[in-house]
């Protein structure tokens, strides 16, 4: 029965998931509008839609709130980046991490990844709201949404005691512990790497300033000694421009590959944690139902048994989906990190080679001068 649903649902999406792109970001006051382009399955046309962060939230809420999907709570929902803010405070910037860098390009990249992940997800892609989100010319999510059960705030409050709950299933228990460790390390690594990138950017800026300041030392005049020194200054300024360029591209490489990778990894691990938490909640619910059923008076016994059975069925579904999801995620994580690491390494190698070439040229120029 479920298989049929899946088949039926595949046709819901009228675009190629992997072609989804967030091509542009438009800033109007404090509002950011993202242009999303995707290729139609039929023919060669493209859908161009403009969406705000609210639209993305709308999409996510609808994905959370699907009612006819069994085991939905076992799904690791692709993580939506935190709300972007123009002129964000330091705290928000810290939350944004890599996504707050540059002119929102990393953020667009993250949104794009989110949409692609949703479109590629075996369960989520069946949801009609995604189709609407990607193709409708009218922005769908402009009205205020009500928070549903997946509200993160409530999770945070309850989480404290439930996370320590002994699991019935060894697999989930291990995974929960592992996730906890990994989430922490990944977040730290991402933060540290962000520090590296930020410092690299500072160095690039400092090199730029130095290069510019060197131009002040350039004097016009006929005096050969002055000319010689001016030439040295100009050349040195070029050198520092090269260093600046080199540093800038190192920072961009860091940001676009490993930086985004670590960021996504960290957010995915958070999503996994949320899922595991939801499952634990369900487990607690089930255990309570069982207790109630045992202790129930004969009058209520049947009703309680029903509740227990429903909960058991639901929990089973969740576990089944969750297991798949976790295996899937772990595989994807590794692939993603590998891809990022390779890209990163290749790009850094490229940059280093370009840098070496540039420095060598400068060096030769100076040797020729001396």
């Amino acid at each position, binding site marked *: 029965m479920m298989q049929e649903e899946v088949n039926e649902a595949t046709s819901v999406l009228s675009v190629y998931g992997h072609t989804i792109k967030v091509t542009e970001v438009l800033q109007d006051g404090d509002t950011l509008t993202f242009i999303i382009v995707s290729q139609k399955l039929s023919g060669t046309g493209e859908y161009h839609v403009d969406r705000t962060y609210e639209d993305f939230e709308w999409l996510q809420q609808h994905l959370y709130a699907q009612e006819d999907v069994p085991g939905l709570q076992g799904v690791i929902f692709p993580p939506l980046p935190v709300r972007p803010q123009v002129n964000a405070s330091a705290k928000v910037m810290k939350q944004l991490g890599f996504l707050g860098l540059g002119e929102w390009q990393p953020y667009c990249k993250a949104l794009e990844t989110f949409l692609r992940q949703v479109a590629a997800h075996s369960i989520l892609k069946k949801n009609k709201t995604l189709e609407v989100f990607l193709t409708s010319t009218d922005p769908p999510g402009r009205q205020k949404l009500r928070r549903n059960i997946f509200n993160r705030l409530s999770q945070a409050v309850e989480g404290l005691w439930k996370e320590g709950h002994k699991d019935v299933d060894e697999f989930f228990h291990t995974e929960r512990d*592992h996730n906890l*460790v*990994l989430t922490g*390390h*990944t977040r*730290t*690594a991402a933060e*540290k*790497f962000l*520090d*590296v990138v930020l*410092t*690299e950017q*500072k*160095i690039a800026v*400092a*090199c730029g*300033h*130095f290069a510019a*300041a*060197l131009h*002040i*030392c350039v*004097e016009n005049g006929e005096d050969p*000694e*002055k000319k*010689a*020194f001016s030439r*040295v200054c100009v*050349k*040195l300024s070029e*050198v520092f421009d090269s*260093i600046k360029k080199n540093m800038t591209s190192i920072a961009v490489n860091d940001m676009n590959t490993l930086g985004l990778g670590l960021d996504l990894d960290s957010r995915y691990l958070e999503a996994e944690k949320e899922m595991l938490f939801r499952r634990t909640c369900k487990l607690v619910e089930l255990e309570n139902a069982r207790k109630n059923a045992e202790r129930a008076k004969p009058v209520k016994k049947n009703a309680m048994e029903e509740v227990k059975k429903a909960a058991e069925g639901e929990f089973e579904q969740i576990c089944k989906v969750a297991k798949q999801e976790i295996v899937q995620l*772990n595989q994807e994580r*590794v692939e993603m*990190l*590998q891809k990022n*690491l*390779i890209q*990163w*390494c*290749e790009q*850094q*190698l490229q940059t*280093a*080679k370009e*840098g*070496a070439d540039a*420095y*060598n040229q*400068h*060096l030769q120029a*100076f*040797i020729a*001068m*001396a």
Partner: protein
Amino acid sequence: MATSSERSPPPFPDSEDQDALDSEEVRARDSDEDDGEELFLSATNTPMAKKENTSAPASHSVDLMSDPLIEPLSNQTENKSPSELFEDLTNDINITAEGASTAENPFGEASDDFVDILGSKAPAQREEVDVTVEATADKGEVSGGATELFGDGKTRSAVQEPTSTAPVMDLSDNLSTSALLPPGSANIPDPLVDLLGDSPAASDAQKPSGAVTDLFDDEGSDIFTGPLPSKSGKQPQKSLFGEANEDLFGEPLGAVSKKATSKEQKEKPVTAGAAAAGGLPSGGNPAEPGDIFSEEAVSALPNARNTRAVNSRTNGVHSEEDSDIFGEATVELSLDSPRNERRKEATTKPASASTSVSASLAKPQSAALEELEEEEELEDKVDIFVSVKDPEKIGDGMNAYMAYKVSTQTTLPMFRNKTFTVRRRFSDFLGLYEKLSEKHGPNGLIVPPPPEKSLLGMTKMKVGKEDSSSADFLERRRGALERYLQRVVNHPMLLQDPDVREFLEKEELPRAVSTQALSGAGFLKMLNKATDAVSKMTIKMNESDVWFEEKLQEVESADQQFRKLHALVELLVIHRKELSLSTASFAKSAAMLGSAEDNTALSRALSQLAEVEDKIEQLHQDQAANDTFSFAELIADFIRLLGAVRGTFDQRMKAWQRWQDAQTILQKKREMEAKLLWANKPDKLQLAKDEITEWEAKVTQYERDFERVSATVRKEVVRFEKEKTKNFKRQIIGYLESLLQSQQQLIKYWEAFLPEAKAIA
């Protein structure tokens, strides 16, 4: 010159006679090539000097030494008069006498002062005054003689031409060209030195090797004992003696070139007269000829020594200021110790003295010759490398200080060894700077400043807190000291300074006391204050030289620019260090992530990544150091040096001020004279006239001072700018090399990591 020929009433009858004798003698000499007789003639007036000298020399010299104002003054006159003599000699010999009398005036003044100071020694007064005058007269005569001899030298070489080889030709060429320079330029003492170097060389035909030993035995000890009794202020001169002595002794034996000997031979016939004069003392009149000979030779000796010192120790850079500086020493020498020396030798063994001196002088000449030839090629080469290493904390608590190993590597003949190492503490470095700037600052030399004393850095060090910042501090300080010393020895004139040699060579250095109170920072502050004071003066100074006006502005703006650059580089260094730190912590967290990762391949790759990042951290750290030492410190050096450049401008300004003040005073004195004339007070009139003469000489003197300082400053600034460009180029090349190297290292790291990343599956 004009003023001195207009009015030259010699203040003392003695010297008038002397002048007459001088001019007569010079005239006679001019007409006659063979100067043996004239030597005798001129010798007639020397005994007097000798006699009087014996009574006063010690106190006299002390006085001259202790009065800094008079000292340079007399130097100047001394330096000038020969050139005047030379100039005029070609046209009118009579002026020579007047030139000599101009030269006397300062001395007259000097002795006046002396009289004032030592008023209690009334009976000695007259005598002492006479001594000074005599001394000047002698000086003038000697210089005249030297000039004369130079003329002789010319003719001599002309005579020799058919037989002589290139070296001698060169000698005469060099001499004549350098001698012809002064009339236009302010660098007058050079020809004097050359001439004096030349004149005794003419009489060097006698046994050189024996002379060398003689020189060492007799003179060496004399030289040492001579200046010793005088005040501590005389120490530099003393050590100069010491060096000259060592060199003279050390080198003629080995290093005296064939040229010297061949030249000696060639000059033999010509110098026969001189040699005969030298030989005479043993025959008949021991006092007179011996005296004249030693007089000439001795007064020439210091000059010649200096010439030698200058020529052979400047890496071939034969600049005129060299001898200028040494002109100072020269005069002091010829005014006291050589006189003592001469006295002794004249009475003991005049012949050997004269021969030894002349022998020692032959060598300098040839050395100078060689150096002159190599001058061009050697200009850019540095034959001396100084390194400062192994900072070491000595002592405990607040009395602790840092000592550094100062190693010198050189091929210069002025040093006894090729490599030598001494230990110096930081205040020694500052002490050296103070000595140098005191001696050479007023002449307009840019004395490279040492790094400032850092209270924070030192306190940390003393407390014994060893962290990265104190290590950084020590390394910066070490590097700065090394560059400072290297700059000092790269300066052709400063390298000649006995204090520099002492600093590099001498095992134990007297403790530099003054620097303790005066920290580097304090000194810079003082410098800045002086700068401010002078810049206020600038408003008053009507700058006639556009070059200086422009340069001063350039220097000021360069100072601003360099300060800005320095701040920017320091910022860059801070970021580099930050990057190194953040890379390290990323490496750590990557390692943690790797260890937490379940997937073995990914875990491995992450651990590898951590290692790569650790290596990259090192690269960043090195790069930070590279930025620091290639640029931040270089720029800091130049900010300091720009301060020194401004200091030279101030010195020039001071010289100008002094000249202007003297002019004002002269004006007043003239007005006074006019008043007295009108009031008809002949008794006071004479005094006023004397004063006018005196101030006229001073004005001339100060004007020349000013011109000389201006010329020096100009040269120094040009040299500074050349050095600046050269320094920057060299540093940038080094910087780029290391940048390239680290980039290549980075490539290697990435190349090694790529397969690891690809292996994840």
